[in-house]
C-alpha cells in the first residue's frame, strides 16, 4: 500500500480542473502545469528507487482488496514510462509557452494537456483491465480536443477521421474486455494472468488475444497506422510532439503488458502475428519516410518505423530483446519529441513545410542544424547516443532466436531512417542560404531551450546506460516473470 502511486494521475487531473476556474490567468496556468510535471518526475523517480529496494508498489482504492477492487500497480516498466512521460510533457510545455499562442491558451489548452498526461500515466499504472480502457478514453478525449483546438479546416477534417478511428478501436477494446470477462470472469490484470495460467491458454483465449492485438495495433500504429500521419502532422508543434512521443507509446505499453502477462502461453500463434505485423510496419514506415517531401509527414513516418522496431523486441521476447525494447521505448519518447520540436521550429522559421523550399538553414540557425544532426545520428543508432543500446539489444535477441529476416528488416529500417533524415538535413541545412540576415525570423529562446534539454537527454541516456540499465533490466525481468507481478498484487498486506 503506497498512496504515492496514484499521484501521477491525480495531480494532473486536479490541476486540469483547477484551470477551468482561472481561464484568463495564463501565467498561473503555465507555472502550475510545469510544476505538476516536475512534481510527477520526482514522484516517479522516488517510486522507481523504492521499487528496487522494496519491490513492486501498489494501492488498492478504498481498501478493496484485489482482485475485487481496482488497484494501481507500479512496477519498474510502468514507472520508467511515467517518468519519461512527465519529462517529455514538461519540456513540450516549455515549447508551448512561446509557440502555442494566447487564443489556444485561453481555450483551456493547459487543462487538456494535463488531462492527457493524467490519462497516459493512468494507463501505465493501472492494474485493472477495464480501468485501462477508462484511462485510454481519458487520454483520447483530451487528444481529440487538442488536435481540433484552433479549428482550421484541415485540422477539423483530420480530427473527425482521428476521432472516428479511435471510437472504433475503443469499441473493439470494449468487446475484447467483454469476451475476456465472459471467458475468465475477472478484470484484475494479475488475476486474469493467474487464471489463464491455471486453465491453460485455450483456443478461445487465443482468439480473444488477437482481438486485443487488433485494438492495440490500432492505438499504437502497428501496421494499422493509416490514420497516424494525417492526424499527427496537422496539430500545432508542441501538441504534435506530445502525441508523437506519448500516444503511440501507450498502445505499445498495453501490447507489451498484455502479451507478457496474459497471453504468453501460445507464442507460436500470437507472437507470430506480432512478428508479421512488426515486419510489415517496418517496411511500410520506411517507404513512407522516404516517399514524401513534406517534413511533417517524414517525421510522422519515423514514428511508425519506431513502433515496428520496438515490437520486434516483443515478437522475439528474449530477455535481451525485451530490455532492448524498453530501452528503445525510453529513447524514442525523448528523441521523437525532439524531432517533432525541431521540425516544427524549422517550419516556423521558414514558413513552409516542404523540404525542397528550404535551403541553407545552417548559416541562419547553426544550433538548430547541429541539434538536427545529433537527433538524426541518435535515431539511426550511432553510438554513444541513446538509440545504439536499444538497437544492439534487440538485434542480439533476434540473433539468439534465429529470426534473421526480422533482424535484417530492423536494421534496414535504421538505414531508411538515416536516409530520410539525411535527405532533410542536406536539403534544408546545407546548400545556398536563401534567407537573408535581414528577413531572418529571430530564433526564440523558448524554442531552443526545450530542444537543447532533449538533445542533452539523448546524450545522457546513451552515455549513462550503465547507470540506467539496472532499472531497465528489472523492468524486463518483471515482464518475463509474471509470477512476480501476480505475487505483488494478490498478496494481502
Amino acid at each position, binding site marked *: 500500500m503506497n498512496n504515492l502511486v496514484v499521484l501521477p494521475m491525480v495531480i494532473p487531473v486536479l490541476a486540469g480542473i483547477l484551470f477551468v476556474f482561472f481561464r484568463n490567468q495564463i501565467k498561473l496556468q503555465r507555472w502550475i502545469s510545469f510544476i505538476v510535471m516536475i512534481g510527477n518526475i520526482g514522484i516517479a523517480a522516488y517510486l522507481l528507487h523504492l521499487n528496487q529496494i522494496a519491490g513492486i508498489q501498489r494501492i488498492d482504492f478504498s481498501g478493496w482488496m484485489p482482485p475485487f477492487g481496482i488497484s494501481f500497480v507500479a512496477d519498474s516498466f510502468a514507472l520508467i514510462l511515467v517518468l519519461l512521460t512527465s519529462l517529455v510533457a514538461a519540456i513540450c510545455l516549455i515549447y508551448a509557452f512561446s509557440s502555442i499562442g494566447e487564443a489556444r491558451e485561453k481555450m483551456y489548452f493547459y487543462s487538456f494537456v494535463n488531462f492527457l498526461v493524467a490519462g497516459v500515466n493512468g494507463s501505465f499504472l493501472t492494474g485493472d483491465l*477495464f480501468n485501462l*480502457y*477508462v484511462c485510454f*478514453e481519458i487520454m483520447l*478525449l483530451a487528444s*481529440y*480536443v487538442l488536435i*481540433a483546438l484552433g*479549428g*482550421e*479546416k*484541415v485540422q*477539423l*477534417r483530420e*480530427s*473527425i477521421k482521428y*476521432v*472516428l478511428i479511435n*471510437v*472504433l478501436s*475503443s*469499441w473493439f477494446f*470494449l*468487446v475484447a*474486455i*467483454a*469476451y475476456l*470477462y*465472459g471467458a475468465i470472469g475477472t*478484470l484484475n490484470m494479475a488475476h486474469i494472468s493467474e487464471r489463464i495460467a491455471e486453465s491453460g491458454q485455450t483456443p478461445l483465449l487465443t482468439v480473444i488475444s488477437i482481438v486485443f492485438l487488433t485494438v492495440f495495433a490500432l492505438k499504437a500504429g502497428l501496421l494499422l497506422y493509416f490514420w497516424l500521419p494525417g492526424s499527427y502532422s*496537422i496539430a500545432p508543434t508542441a501538441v504534435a510532439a506530445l502525441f508523437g512521443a506519448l500516444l503511440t507509446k501507450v498502445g505499445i505499453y498495453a501490447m507489451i503488458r498484455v502479451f507478457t502477462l496474459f497471453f504468453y502461453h501460445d507464442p507460436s500463434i500470437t507472437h507470430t502475428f506480432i512478428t508479421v505485423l512488426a515486419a510489415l510496419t517496418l517496411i511500410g514506415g520506411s517507404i513512407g519516410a522516404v516517399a514524401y517531401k513534406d517534413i511533417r509527414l517524414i517525421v510522422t513516418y519515423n514514428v511508425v518505423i519506431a513502433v515496428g522496431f520496438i515490437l520486434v523486441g516483443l515478437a522475439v521476447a528474449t530477455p535481451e530483446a525485451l530490455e532492448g525494447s524498453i530501452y528503445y521505448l525510453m529513447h524514442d519518447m525523448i528523441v521523437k519529441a525532439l524531432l517533432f520540436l525541431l521540425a516544427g521550429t524549422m517550419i516556423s522559421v521558414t514558413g513552409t513545410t516542404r523540404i525542397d523550399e528550404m535551403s541553407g538553414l545552417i548559416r541562419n540557425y547553426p544550433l538548430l542544424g547541429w541539434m538536427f544532426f545529433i537527433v538524426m545520428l541518435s535515431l539511426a543508432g550511432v553510438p554513444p547516443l541513446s538509440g545504439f543500446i536499444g538497437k544492439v539489444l534487440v538485434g542480439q535477441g533476434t540473433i539468439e532466436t534465429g529470426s534473421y529476416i526480422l533482424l535484417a528488416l530492423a536494421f534496414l529500417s535504421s538505414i531508411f531512417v538515416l536516409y530520410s533524415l539525411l535527405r532533410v538535413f542536406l536539403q534544408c541545412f546545407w546548400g545556398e542560404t536563401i534567407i537573408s540576415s535581414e528577413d531572418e525570423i529571430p530564433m526564440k529562446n523558448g524554442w531552443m531551450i526545450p530542444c537543447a534539454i532533449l538533445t542533452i537527454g539523448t546524450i545522457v541516456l546513451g552515455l549513462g546506460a550503465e547507470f540506467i540499465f539496472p532499472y531497465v533490466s528489472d523492468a524486463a525481468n518483471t515482464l518475463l516473470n509474471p509470477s512476480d507481478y501476480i505475487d505483488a498484487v494478490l498478496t494481502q498486506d
Partner: protein
Amino acid sequence: METLTTILTGVLVSVATYLILSRSVLRVILGTAVLSHAAHLLIMSMGRGLKSGEVPILTDEALSYVDPLPQALILTSIVISFAVTAILLVLAYRTYRETGTDNLFEWRGIKDE
C-alpha cells in the same frame, strides 16, 4: 435470454456498420452511438444469469445473486460514449459550418492550408 441479447447485439452491429459506411456525417455519428450500445449489450450478456430474477446483492440469506460487475462496466462505458458522441457532434457541426456540407465525400477535397 442470453441468446436473444446476443442476436440483438449482432443486429445492432450490422445496423451500426451500415450507418458508419454512409456519406452523411450525422449518420456516421449515430452509427458510432448504436455501435457502443451493441458493446454494452454484449457486456451484459457476458454477466450470466440475465433472467434469474435476482438482485445484485449478496447477503447472508441470499441463495443466489446476479453478477453486479457488468452493470458497473456498462454504466461507465455509457458515460464515456456519451462524452465521445457529444464531442463528435460538436466537431461535425464546426466542420459543417466551415465547409457548408455534411457530405463526407466532399470533405475529402479540402485543400491543406
